[in-house]
């Protein structure tokens, strides 16, 4: 056998090995693939199907109808969508403003303190979600702890009516989603090269300038990740406004849930509203991604 033949046969053998490995991979991933297709992808097809059916009090009538979409385009649900969008945006912004200093402080602590502080941020997170919301009701209610304390201190003359307002919703939203903002910010700031900051200040930049020109741009990835992690679940929130808010300002998550659960049900409209929410999320993600890419490309151009 000459040399080229040997190479050819070894590459045939290699090809065969690659093929066998590929089959093995398909086999190993088959259960997960099957599961995700059947219980994640297919359900969305059902949502699309149900969105063009005729509503019924209990379930659906299998008769084609575009009524749900017509209703949406007529603008019946603009207000809940607007409220949800505003809530998600506000929650994200407040979490960012409050979370950044916290993440920064943790990232600049000593190694020992870093671990302790991160665990301190995570512990409340381990308490059941519903229970944490419930305890905010106790705290904020009209004859609740906060009002008692403020009245006793003489800071207010009559109890503040916070519960059942949008303020209560915002407070609890920030409470629930703050760790989702702090942790990605922390992991990015922690890896930041702080000698750049010193260099900027040596070159005459003041604290504020150094922060806005160096630290903030370098932690952009954490800001994007944190914002996505807060904004998306915030947009679909149901239980927080349900337990803290009032029935005069309904959010889209509440409308969808009512239409699925409460009789008279309307599954087609719930499906169509879910799809609209999906489109909004896709749009927000695309805009963020485009913005992110744009900055990346600009950075590369500057580097040239």
């Amino acid at each position, binding site marked *: 056998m000459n040399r080229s033949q040997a190479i050819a046969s070894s590459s045939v053998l290699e090809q065969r090995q690659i093929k066998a*490995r*590929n089959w*093995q*991979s398909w086999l*190993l*991933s088959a*259960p*997960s*693939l099957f*599961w*995700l297709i059947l*219980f*994640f992808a*297919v*359900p*969305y097809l*059902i*949502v699309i*199907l*149900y969105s063009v059916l005729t509503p019924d009090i209990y*379930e659906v009538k299998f008769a084609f109808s575009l009524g749900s979409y017509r209703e949406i385009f007529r603008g019946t649900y603009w207000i809940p969508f607007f409220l949800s969008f505003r809530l998600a945006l506000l929650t994200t912004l407040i979490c960012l403003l*409050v979370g950044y*200093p*916290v993440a920064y*402080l*943790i990232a600049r602590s000593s190694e020992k303190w870093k671990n302790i502080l991160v665990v*301190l941020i995570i*512990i*409340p997170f*381990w*308490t*059941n*979600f*519903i*229970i*944490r919301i419930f*305890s*905010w009701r*106790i*705290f904020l209610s009209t*004859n*609740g*702890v906060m009002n008692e304390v403020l009245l006793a201190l003489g800071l207010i003359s009559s109890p503040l009516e916070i519960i059942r307002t949008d303020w209560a919703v915002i407070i609890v939203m920030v*409470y629930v989603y703050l760790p989702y903002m702090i942790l990605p910010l922390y992991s990015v700031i922690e890896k930041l090269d702080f000698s750049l900051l010193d260099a900027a200040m040596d070159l005459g930049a003041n*604290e504020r300038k150094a922060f806005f020109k160096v630290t903030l741009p370098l932690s952009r990835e954490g800001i994007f990740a944190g914002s*996505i992690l807060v904004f*998306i*679940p915030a947009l*679909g*929130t149901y*239980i927080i406004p349900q337990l803290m808010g009032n029935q005069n300002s309904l959010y889209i*998550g509440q409308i969808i*849930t009512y239409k*699925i659960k409460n009789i008279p049900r309307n*599954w087609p409209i719930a*499906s169509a509203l*879910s799809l609209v*929410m*999906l489109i909004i*999320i896709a749009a927000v993600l695309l805009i963020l991604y485009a913005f992110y890419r744009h900055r990346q490309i600009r950075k590369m151009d500057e580097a040239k």
Partner: protein
Amino acid sequence: MKPNKIYHNLNLTIFTLVMVFLYIPILILVVFSFNDSKIVANWQGFTFKYYLLLFKNEQIKLAFEHTILIAVSATVVSTALGVLAALGLENKRFTGKKFLTTLVYIPLMMPDILMGVSLALLFNFLRVGTGMVTVFIAHVTFCLSYTVIVIQSRLEGFDNSLVEAAMDLGAKPWLIFWRIKLPLIMPGIVAAALLAFTLSLDDFIVTFFTSGRGFDTLPIYVEGAIRRGTITTINALSTLMIGFTLILVAVTKRVRKFFF
């Protein structure tokens, strides 16, 4: 004062306020679980009676059993599937890599409510009665993405030299898997299982859409109790749950030390 100092103090103030903000609800739950009053908000005196009432409540016992049953089974299945998928994804020339990765990451980009709605409609379409099985399926579905990603990230930092050495010495593939690969990725598997377990314990919204009547988990029971206004025992229940998670965390730390 130097500006440096001012910024640092500002950060420290915000940090302290955030910590107070994060711990207020937990403190309140614990304190008020011992409060001898029908109205939740007023302090009337110390009592253990809600803890006693709690242990007499059959509904809570049942909900607790359901929660643990679902959490354990969903954790086992989603972790096992996650290990297999992560091993499959390890192959860089796997032709389905991109497809599976996309399918794993997309659920993380969706609000829970959409998974709840879509699964509820799927079960209706298939004429499957909602109950334990549907809740189990739903929990595995939202845990799966996390387990795959956690185990995969462990495999990525995997040092292949030990596997190659074993192969050179003539070890069989299954032996290599059991004796070398599995122990090395064990930390990833434990982390994934713990994450799945906590996600399952904590879930409200997906369970709310897929449980139907008669199969309550603890979060579902608590929400119902808040809605009905029968809330006196909830503080005690919450305190026990907080204690339970803290014990779980402590045990985890021990287990981690034992393993790694």
